[in-house]
């Protein structure tokens, strides 16, 4: 792959991430039985992605922050021995409602893209 193609790929991946990352973060916090802090969330994302996550861990934090500001997540701060106090996030009721909407939007988009790629919806 030459440099220009590599750049195009990274740009495409970045644009894909900008929508899916919020969905993934909401889903992780929805499934979790307990509040999670930034590092745990980042870790679980990286661990589940085969052959290296295409998203830099540091870019997750501003997304968590903005979702908290929009009322999708709640948080509390607890002291830690390893560094600064940790911010533990939980999903709010509004976050669950939004997640349900996003899930169906995602399913629709994914099916449509798959169908187009496989040439099943040619008229």
């Amino acid at each position, binding site marked *: 792959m030459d440099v220009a193609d590599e750049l195009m790929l990274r740009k495409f991946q970045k644009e894909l991430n900008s929508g899916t990352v919020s969905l993934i973060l909401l889903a992780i916090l929805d499934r979790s039985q307990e509040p999670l*802090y*930034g*590092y745990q969330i*980042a*870790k679980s994302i*990286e661990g589940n992605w085969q052959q290296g996550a295409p998203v*830099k*861990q*540091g*870019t997750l*934090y*501003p*997304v968590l*922050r*903005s979702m908290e*500001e*929009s009322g999708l997540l709640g948080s509390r701060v607890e002291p*830690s*021995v*390893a*560094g*600064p*106090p*940790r*911010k533990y996030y939980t999903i709010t009721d509004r976050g669950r409602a939004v997640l349900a909407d996003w899930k169906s939007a995602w399913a629709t988009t994914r099916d449509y893209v798959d169908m187009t790629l496989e040439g099943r919806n040619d008229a």
Partner: protein
Amino acid sequence: MPETIEAYLAELRTALAGADPALVQDAVYDAEEYLRSAAAENGGTPEAVAEAIDAYGTPAEIAAAYRETERTVTAALRRPAAPSSKSTNPFARFFGVVADPAAWGALFYMLLSLLTGVLYFTVVVTGLSLSAGLFILIIGVPVALLFIGAVRAISLAEGRIVEGLLGQRMPRRPRTVVVADGTIWGRLKSWFSDYRTWTTMLYMLLMLPLGITYFTVVVSALAVSVATFALPIVQWVANSPVIRINGWGYLVEPWGAPFFFAGGLLGVFLTLWLAKGIGYLHGLFAKVMLVGRFEGGAQ
């Protein structure tokens, strides 16, 4: 690529130079949380640190992500400006202040500042004198630490109040200081050497005279406005002159009543404008003292 957490945080600050200091503080806080957790989990070796930094992303990448999110979030959360405030008609602009949340927020902040001012002043004076007085005894050390911790907590809380009522963007995380070692002792030492701790205390001391002034100004201005408005009504209900000077009572003629009503209403609008102006200035002042306007570059 930076090799230590401290170097990384310094580079992140540089990459965010020029951004809102409150945003810089939040970004550095997040990065430190991740890097220290990741490094600690993998044994704290230099390799573990390098790996954590690699996974987190380059300072330039992360700075771009924060700037991008801040831009979209502020765009989405910004309250639409009241239509009257955009009007070019000076009368509409002047009277539109009554629908301006910033003016009412500032008014409320000025009333609240008497309470918070007394509280902050008491905390600082008590904390400083207790710490200084007990310093020769061993108990002075925990007292001083407790005091500094309280000052930092209050600084964050006051920031939330200022952002909520005065609309000035303030940090949403406690302040992080870049320290040579991540131990508790290094952290505590850094609290003392951080000049922001001392400007915060100064701010808390100044809040007493400021709070008294703000409260007095708002209460006086509102009282004068309400009294002017109510004067003809009281005179009519009580059926006796309200203005009394040297034993002489002065009656307001019926044709004069509308002037008093108009004057009283004008007073309320002027008070709102005054509150809005003072609120804006105080927001800037709080930011300089608690966060620092000119921070953000490499320190």
